């Protein structure tokens, strides 16, 4: 049906549509940018829920937040290099324990919440560290001892030990996003859906289940956007979103997962398809305190039983990569030398289970109702059933999945830690004891703390790599977490979108985008 063309550059659909357009009197013509408004329309696959940086999770939330908030420093979207954001410069003391940042003057918070000062920076980080906030990112700031504000435009971080990766923690992502003391204190419970930042876009409104609207911030310190507003529209089905993109009902197609839709958009007229390797893997996290899973042989059996290659080549049609550990090759610190691999070997799996004296093992995989996380576990359960494990899949909608997983009472769950190219991001989140439930270390693994601390204290790149390699080797030997595949990010956009850069953070950021009239 698609792909048939009457002439180069002219599609059958285009001809029919043109004729129909004439027939319908031109009132229903192709969308034309109205004078004076430049609205960018981005597709989301699911809804937002939480815009408070201390508690933020899930890529849609993070995408919205990346337009609203600034950090002291930020990741360059293309290269992942760390560049200044709201800070104009910084110095590190010789002993590596004090990091002093100079802040940009004359920056104001959105919606009249006053001037941005170093006190807001102090407030932002202290609140992440405060157990009462219940932040998921407390573990990331474990090396921070205190924050000093010598004057309104200077902030100093004092660490309790040198940390070569400290800049990552301050990057504009999750805990690095800065909030206004005034706004958080005044809005209280309502803050999570009324975010106030210093970024290029201001939060306008959220129509639940349908769309989010941001308007451009005219006084953004980095220069106001040429867009007037951005609309993030929730379209669950990817094929419908693809048709919408081709019909110019949408400008940017985010969260593109389905292999067929990717193929279709690759061939579509006027559509640009971008892809790059992501910084995350999708993992099966096994609860090492739950029954037979306490035995490492059972966990290794599960790893051998899953046919990951068939999943990547067959189910995903090659749109994902193989993963040997929780870190992927996009990390500078990555090295898989000596890391144990678990080839697809159902016989070995059965042998291990027999050795561990396990039979009639009822195993439940809890997963979230998002594409593809609600789909591929079915194939995994199938593989496990082939080796005699009675595997079932329980799909929970996001709002229910997150608290269920946080309770720590699941046998196993699917977790992907998306985000910055900071190796601590997935590793601390999945293996540090500080991340035990309600954090994401639902395997309750406790043998990585020292190795993580050593790695963060490594003085140079080579030794950092070595230290992280040690960590990977150990975690793959104990295999509390089975990496299923390394993610690949696909985004498509229409011809009127210019200046779009795809990041590897798993979010979409349209701050630099401008629209060209058709």
């Amino acid at each position, binding site marked *: *049906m*698609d792909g048939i063309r009457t002439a180069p550059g002219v599609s059958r*659909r*285009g001809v*029919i*549509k043109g004729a*129909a357009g004439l027939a319908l009197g031109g*009132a*229903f013509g192709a*969308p034309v940018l*109205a004078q004076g408004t430049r*609205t960018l329309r981005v597709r989301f696959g699911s*809804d937002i*829920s939480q815009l408070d940086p201390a508690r933020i999770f899930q890529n849609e939330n993070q995408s919205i937040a990346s337009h609203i908030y600034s950090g002291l420093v930020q990741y360059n979207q293309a290269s992942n290099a760390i560049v200044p954001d709201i800070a104009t410069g910084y110095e590190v003391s010789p002993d590596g324990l004090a990091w002093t940042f100079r802040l940009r003057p004359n920056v104001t918070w959105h919606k009249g919440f006053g001037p941005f000062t170093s006190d807001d920076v102090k407030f932002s980080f202290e609140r992440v560290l405060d157990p009462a906030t219940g932040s998921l990112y407390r573990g990331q700031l474990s090396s921070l001892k205190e924050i000093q504000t010598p004057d309104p435009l200077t902030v100093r971080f004092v660490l309790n030990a040198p940390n070569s990766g400290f800049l990552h923690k301050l990057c504009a992502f999750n805990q690095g996003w800065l909030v206004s003391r005034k706004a958080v204190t005044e809005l209280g*419970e*309502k803050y999570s*859906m009324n975010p106030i930042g210093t970024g290029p876009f201001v939060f306008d409104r*959220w*129509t*639940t*289940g*349908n*769309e989010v*609207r941001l308007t451009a911030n005219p006084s953004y310190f980095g220069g106001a956007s040429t867009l007037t507003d951005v*609309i993030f*529209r*929730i*379209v*669950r*089905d990817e094929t*419908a979103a693809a*048709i*919408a993109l081709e*019909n110019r*009902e*949408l400008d940017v197609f985010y969260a593109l997962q389905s292999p067929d839709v990717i193929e279709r958009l690759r061939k579509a007229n006027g559509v640009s398809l971008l892809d790059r390797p992501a910084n995350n893997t999708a993992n099966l996290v096994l609860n090492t305190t739950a029954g037979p899973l306490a035995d490492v042989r059972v966990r290794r059996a599960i790893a051998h039983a899953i046919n990951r290659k068939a999943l990547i080549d067959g189910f995903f049609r090659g749109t994902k990569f193989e993963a040997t550990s929780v870190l992927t090759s996009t990390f500078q610190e990555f090295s898989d030398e000596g890391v144990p691999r678990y080839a697809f070997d159902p016989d070995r799996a059965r042998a291990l289970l027999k050795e561990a004296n396990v039979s009639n093992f009822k195993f439940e995989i809890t997963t979230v*109702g998002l594409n593809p996380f609600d789909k591929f576990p079915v194939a995994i359960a199938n593989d496990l059933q082939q080796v005699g494990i009675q595997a079932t899949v329980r799909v929970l*909608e*996001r*709002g*229910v999945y*997150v*608290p*269920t997983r*946080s*309770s720590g*009472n699941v046998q196993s769950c699917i977790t992907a830690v998306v985000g910055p190219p900071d190796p601590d991001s997935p590793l601390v989140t999945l293996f540090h004891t500080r991340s035990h439930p*309600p954090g994401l270390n639902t395997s309750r693994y406790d043998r990585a703390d020292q190795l993580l601390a050593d790695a963060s204290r490594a003085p140079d790149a080579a030794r950092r790599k070595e230290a992280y390699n040690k960590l990977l080797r150990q975690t793959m030997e104990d295999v509390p977490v089975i990496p299923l595949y390394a993610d690949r990010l696909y985004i498509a956009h229409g011809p009127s979108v210019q200046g779009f850069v795809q990041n590897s953070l798993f979010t979409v950021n349209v701050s630099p985008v401008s629209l060209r009239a058709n």
Partner: protein
Amino acid sequence: MPFYLARCALQLLVALVGIVTVAFFLMRAIPGDPALYMLGDFATAEALANLRARLGLDQPVWRQYLIFLVRAAGGDLGMSVATGQPALAEIWSAVPPSAALAAAGMAVAVLVGVPLGIVAAVRQGSAVDVFVMLVALGGISFPVFWLGLVAILVFSHALGLFPVLGATSQPGFWKAAHHLALPALVLGFSVAAYIARLTRSAMLEVLGQDHIRVARAMGVPERRIVWRLALRNALIPVLAVIGVTFAWSLGNAILVETVFSRPGLGSTILKAVLARDYQLVQAGVLVLAAAVVLLNTALDLLYGAIDPRLART
């Protein structure tokens, strides 16, 4: 007539109280602790206690019911657990796009279904009758979301005539209408099938009645019989059909909204269901039932105007 009006008003009040009652018991369908169900295992004890107090769960059932009733009368249907906003406000903001879809859908359904039903009844047993009834059978047999997918496949994907997204936030009446067209046609078609069948039955019943036979015997031209005698008498059952269909079509509307990613009560309630935001689910179901009741009351008043016999009782 005033007696009739008063009776309609009283029925409306009873119905509204009844709806609130049923909505109240809907919450009781949750096994275990509704607060835990809504907030999840990881909720803080404080949040749970707050919600329980709000729902009045520790009080005797009759007391809970009265509190619920009084609050509902004042427009307070609880808070959405996900957004913390009042449930009624959130439902209310989703009403306009749903109302637009329902109105457009019903318009299509009535304009297509009623004439088809009449034609089929008048030409009972002929090829036209068979054809109309087969098409109608198809319309009620295929799930409406399936019809939506086929419509997208044919009209959006293959022909590019209509947008696939059921709504747009860009301004302009014609733009909005263009996006509404396909969902309205799909919803309308499925309801039209239902209306056509029921209208046909109603018309046949009327046409079989004695006074019609007498008129025919007396040589009154067929067209006059159909349009002036039969139709007016069939009008009441047809209006009744529309009233009955409306409730049913609201159920279909949620499926159509999902297929076309169109905002409205359907997607709001579905999201609330998936997120276990039960206060919002309750509010949504309540508002929809209220809409049905109000429509039926309006229809009752219309009957009273059309058929004076009813008004006199």
